[in-house]
């Protein structure tokens, strides 16, 4: 007779708490102290940010209840969202955001065939056209673009170009052609070795010195190029990690079936490498999005810049806590969303990425 099946022993919540939180007198003390600290901190923040906060007003003087003065944000809501983009043309900002959404659609919806990714750059061009005017709509110079939409615009556009560029650089770095390999290594190592803020300054101050008189690129385009190239270098290393994780046998099997190097790479190696590299790639996306906050140093009024400008306004002086807390929340929400999205991608694709382990 075989041993009958028995369910695994269960642990109640009470038993768990006793074992993990209140096992000894020391444990109990520590648990209570930490719990009190966490509660106190949560309450203080909640009280300041929500309960005693002032939500509307014209100046700092209107904030009288002693909590956070969110009036600073609500009073400048339009700048926060869209910078100084002209009032009657705000629909163009909305249209640009629709283009941005289209650009990331092929990455978000995995049912779409991979070639739709090739359309993303077109969506980015569309967004810039509708914002700039493209000689059809009235021209709005980039000096007027700003706010959160600028972060999204630069972040998404740079991501759309940085991913394919990073893949090419990663493949280039593993290429057997010495020139391609040398250039890829040189580019990646140079760009990774210099702080983004330095590159941004170089693009806005140093680059014009080397360009012939009369030739100039828009500040925003320069910034976009710099952020794209910077992210591409990091993206290349993320993708390279994925490429290295694909076993050599995959290439050999493809070769043995008669597939050439190009098809072996695009049909066999890259799909596996990119799936393996999802966490690293999303990590780079998150870094890239946060880096858009550095654009204010070259006088592009993205959301951090808008808040700093508000702080410089006499009516709102001294509200640093509110200004930076708001910026932090904006970035945190966006980045946490990306992180969750990455986790769901990994779950969906998890079983497929499993590679046969050598026995």
């Amino acid at each position, binding site marked *: 007779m075989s041993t009958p099946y028995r369910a695994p022993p269960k642990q109640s919540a009470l038993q768990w708490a006793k074992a993990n939180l209140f096992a000894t007198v020391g444990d109990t003390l520590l648990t209570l102290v930490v719990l009190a600290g966490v509660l106190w901190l949560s309450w203080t923040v909640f009280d300041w940010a929500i309960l005693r906060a002032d939500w509307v007003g014209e100046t700092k003087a209107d904030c009288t209840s002693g909590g956070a003065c969110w009036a600073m944000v609500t009073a400048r809501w339009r700048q926060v969202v869209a910078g100084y983009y002209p009032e009657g043309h705000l629909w163009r900002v909305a249209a640009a955001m629709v283009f941005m959404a289209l650009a990331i659609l092929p990455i978000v919806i995995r049912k779409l065939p991979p070639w739709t990714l090739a359309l993303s750059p077109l969506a980015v061009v569309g967004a810039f056209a509708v914002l700039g005017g493209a000689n059809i709509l009235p021209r709005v110079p980039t000096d007027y673009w700003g706010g959160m939409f600028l972060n999204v615009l630069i972040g998404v556009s740079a991501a759309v170009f940085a991913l394919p560029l990073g893949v090419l650089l990663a493949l280039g770095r593993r290429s057997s052609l010495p020139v391609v390999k040398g250039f890829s290594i040189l580019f990646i190592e140079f760009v990774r070795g210099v702080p983004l803020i330095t590159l941004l300054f170089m693009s806005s101050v140093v680059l014009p010195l080397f360009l012939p008189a009369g030739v100039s690129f828009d500040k925003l385009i320069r910034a976009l190029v710099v952020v794209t190239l910077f992210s591409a270098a990091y993206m290349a290393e993320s993708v390279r990690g994925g490429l290295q994780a694909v076993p050599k046998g995959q290439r050999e*099997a*493809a070769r043995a079936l008669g*597939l050439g190097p190009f098809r072996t790479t695009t049909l066999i190696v890259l799909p596996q490498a990119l799936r393996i590299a999802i966490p690293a790639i999303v990590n780079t996306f998150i870094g890239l999005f946060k880096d858009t906050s550095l654009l204010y140093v070259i006088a592009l009024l993205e959301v951090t810049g808008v808040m700093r400008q508000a702080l410089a306004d006499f009516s709102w002086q001294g509200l640093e806590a509110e200004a930076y807390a708001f910026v932090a929340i904006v970035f945190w929400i966006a980045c946490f969303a990306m992180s969750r999205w990455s986790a769901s991608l990994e779950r969906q694709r998890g*079983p497929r990425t499993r590679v046969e382990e050598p*026995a």
Partner: protein
Amino acid sequence: MISAAKPDRPPLGEPVVEIEGLHKWYGQTHVLRGVDLAVRDNEKVVILGPSGSGKSTLIRCINGLEPHQEGSVKVTGVEVDADTGQAAAARRKTGMVFQQFNLFPHLTVLENCTLAPMWVRKVPRKRAEAEAMALLERVQIAEHARKFPAQLSGGQQQRAAIARALAMQPEIMLFDEPTSALDPEMVGEVLEVMTELANAGMTMIVVSHEMAFARQVADRVIFMDEGEIVEIAPPDEFFTAPKHERSREFLSRIL
């Protein structure tokens, strides 16, 4: 060289694989030291030898996975280690089954079997799928066609890998230790498929330590050691009365 078909099989044809004076180095290591071998159409050859004897390298040279420095490796009369369309076409006449299966984990079993026919042989999807299903039927895993490799057992994966190689309609099948990575209870099902393939007239070159399989299926057994062929003999002769000292030593260690 002695080579006659087993009594119940059709007679052997012309040589389809011809290896002459083959030398190969990995860096400073001399792994193949003057190998000569001809395998005839419909012949089944099993290569034995201790690890590091160069047997895997030898069959990897036959389909051009490994380049060689001296000598020639010809499939149907064409040198395979060359950068020409002819050489590529000759290489495509070989199919390879690996020790680690090397199925594509991001594709279903069916997609594994249709990918190369569709991209290399330019077969339309519908026909490629019909052909692949027939092959999966033949290796008895048709019901797993829509699964991913990771969802299959080792034996099922190796049978899928055989079907994938057959989908390119090769004239010669190369097996590189096809059962070495399998749990013991799954070895039989893979050998069964290989035996069926042998009986159907496929030319096969098999690196394997499955003695029973070699006895039953091989027309010739080739014993390799230290990068050279030490002995070639029909299996009955090789296993009962090996001529060479090194063969005897090897057999005494594994039998």
